[in-house]
Every structure is written in structure tokens, then in C-alpha cells.
């Protein structure tokens, strides 16, 4: 049975990926951040009681800002595939928390890659890269070969993560891939992202439960 480790399993993409991998018969391990607020709503339907035998979903406390925790988890789990989806993923919030965003999104990716290198396990890694790398666009449409020009602390942090992933692939022969995903939305999108904020407002305003929706740049 193949084993996968997902950082960011509690998020939109992580929860869908966990579903897919469980369907394919993977043993799925997810890292969740300890928080006083409940943050596992998106994987509630997948949860399996660790007291049962032969469960295929395992959750571990961890964080991309904690190197020894990452090494320990990778060593213990020995995943065949790692999906790095954890991040401070809100572009707007990255202007308020630039250092934290860099710590998690940029250095966090390095920590994960280094944990693989240190523990020497044979694994593949997927890095969640983003269209925010293109920011001030240099070419229309954007392709894999289009030069990057990020326009937010989030984009800049993800730029580091992109290149360190490429570097570890080339330097240490690691099977590492960047998926440069453009906007991808769903009913599981966080409610503070503009698309979901709009769909929640449309539902509430039409039901008479909200009066107004405030937006930023309408032409974005």
C-alpha cells in the first residue's frame, strides 16, 4: 500500500486530495496545526477513529515552522509521496503578516525538503506553486517559461519555494514537482477569499439575511 503525507490537509485542496488518495487505496497521513479554534471541518467526513484497526487516514500534529517535527514525521511515516499544500495562503493577509508568510511558505518548504534530504527516505514531493508568481505579467497568456514577477509577500515567499524545489531536484536528484495552479475555487474555499465571500453573500442577501457585500478591486 502506498503512503502519502499531506501538509495542509485541513484546507480546500488538501481535503479534496485526501479524498482522492483514500479512494485510490493510499494510506494517507495529514499534518494539522494545533489551534485553540477548531480547524478540521473540511476533513470531518474522512475522519477515522485511531482506536480502530486498519484505518487509512492518520492525522499528526505538526507545523512547517518546526523542523524537528517534520523530520520525525517523515522518518516515522516513510511516505512514498509528499504533497506540500500547507501555507499562509491569503494574498491580502500576507501584506499584514509578511514575515510569518515567508516563514511558512518559503522557509517551511525548505524545511520539508531538508527533512527529506536528512532522513534520506525515497519519496516524491509536490510543491503547491501559484499563478501569483506571475503577478505583474511579462507575457500573455502565461506559460511554464514566462518570467516571474510576484506582487505580494505571498507571491515572493512562493517564489522562493518554487526555486528551492527546483534546486533540490537538480542538486540532490529529488523527484520534486511544482504545480503552478491558477485560481481554483470550490464550495470548500475559505470564506475570506473573494469568490467564497461573494457566493456566501449572494446566498444570504437573496434570503434576506445580509444587506450588503463589500469588495475590493472589482476589476481584479
Amino acid at each position, binding site marked *: 500500500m502506498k503512503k502519502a503525507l499531506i501538509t495542509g490537509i485541513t484546507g480546500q485542496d488538501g481535503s479534496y486530495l485526501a479524498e482522492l488518495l483514500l479512494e485510490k487505496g493510499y494510506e494517507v497521513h495529514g499534518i494539522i496545526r494545533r489551534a485553540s479554534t477548531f480547524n478540521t471541518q473540511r476533513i470531518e467526513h474522512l475522519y477515522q477513529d485511531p482506536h480502530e484497526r486498519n484505518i487509512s487516514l492518520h492525522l499528526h500534529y505538526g507545523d512547517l515552522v518546526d523542523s524537528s517535527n517534520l523530520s520525525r514525521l517523515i522518518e516515522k511515516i516513510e511516505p512514498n509521496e509528499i*504533497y506540500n499544500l500547507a501555507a499562509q495562503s491569503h494574498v491580502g493577509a500576507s501584506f499584514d503578516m509578511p514575515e510569518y508568510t515567508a516563514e511558512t511558505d518559503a522557509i517551511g518548504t525548505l524545511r520539508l525538503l531538508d527533512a527529506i534530504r536528512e532522513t534520506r527516505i525515497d519519496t516524491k514531493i509536490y510543491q503547491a506553486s501559484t499563478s501569483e508568481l506571475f503577478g505583474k505579467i511579462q507575457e500573455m*497568456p502565461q506559460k511554464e517559461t514566462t518570467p516571474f514577477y510576484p506582487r505580494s509577500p505571498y507571491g515572493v515567499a512562493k517564489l522562493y519555494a518554487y526555486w528551492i524545489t527546483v534546486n533540490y531536484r537538480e542538486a540532490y536528484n529529488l523527484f520534486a514537482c511544482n504545480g503552478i495552479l491558477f485560481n481554483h475555487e470550490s464550495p470548500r474555499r475559505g470564506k475570506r477569499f473573494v469568490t467564497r465571500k461573494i457566493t456566501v453573500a449572494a446566498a444570504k*442577501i437573496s434570503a434576506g439575511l445580509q444587506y450588503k*457585500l463589500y*469588495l475590493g478591486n472589482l476589476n481584479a
Partner: protein
Amino acid sequence: MYKMLQCSEPCDLLIATGETHTVREFAERAFEIAGIKLDWEGEGVTEKGIDRKTGNTIVEVDPRYFRPTEVDILMGDPSKAKEKINWEPKVKFEELVEIMVKADIDKLSKKGEIGLDYL
């Protein structure tokens, strides 16, 4: 993501629809699905979205959501993903907005609320 790790060689791929849409279009379509026609009036920070039927202003611009630096209109070409991992978008803009609005309407009618967010 899964498909990329099943390739014979590691590579970097762009995943996109090849389309581009603005926040304005998203809002228009979302309200339309919820049964509200939006008319825009004014410009810039004073631009407003008005419910055609009731005349109420239901969308306003709040500059606090503006970003110090904004990205341009992004539009990705997914042809390499098609070639390397045979990936193509299944759901595009119109259908996506519909799925999202209907899911929120459904959640609201079943639970009476969708959850609070203050920011």
C-alpha cells in the same frame, strides 16, 4: 497534483483554464444564480452594485480591501499539462460559480447559517 507525481520524470506544470474573469463578473454571475440582477453605477471607490428589482445597493467598494500592489489579469496556458499528464479543466467559470452559489444556498437552507467571519 497526483498525476504530476506519477510522471516518469519530475517536471513543473501550469494548471489553468486558459480563461480569465474579473471579480465583477464573478459577482454578477453569483447574484444572477441567486435570482438577483445587478446593475453597476458610479466609478472607482464610489461604484455600487444595485439590485435591479428592489433598487437597494447591495455591493459597495471598500478601499480597505485594496492591496498595496495588485497583480495584473492572469491567464494561464495549460497546454503543457495536457501534453505531459493529459490534464484538462472539466469545470469552467460559469458552472463553477453555479456550483458554489448553490452549495451555499443549500447550506443556508439546511443549517440556517453558513458560519460567521468578521474580517
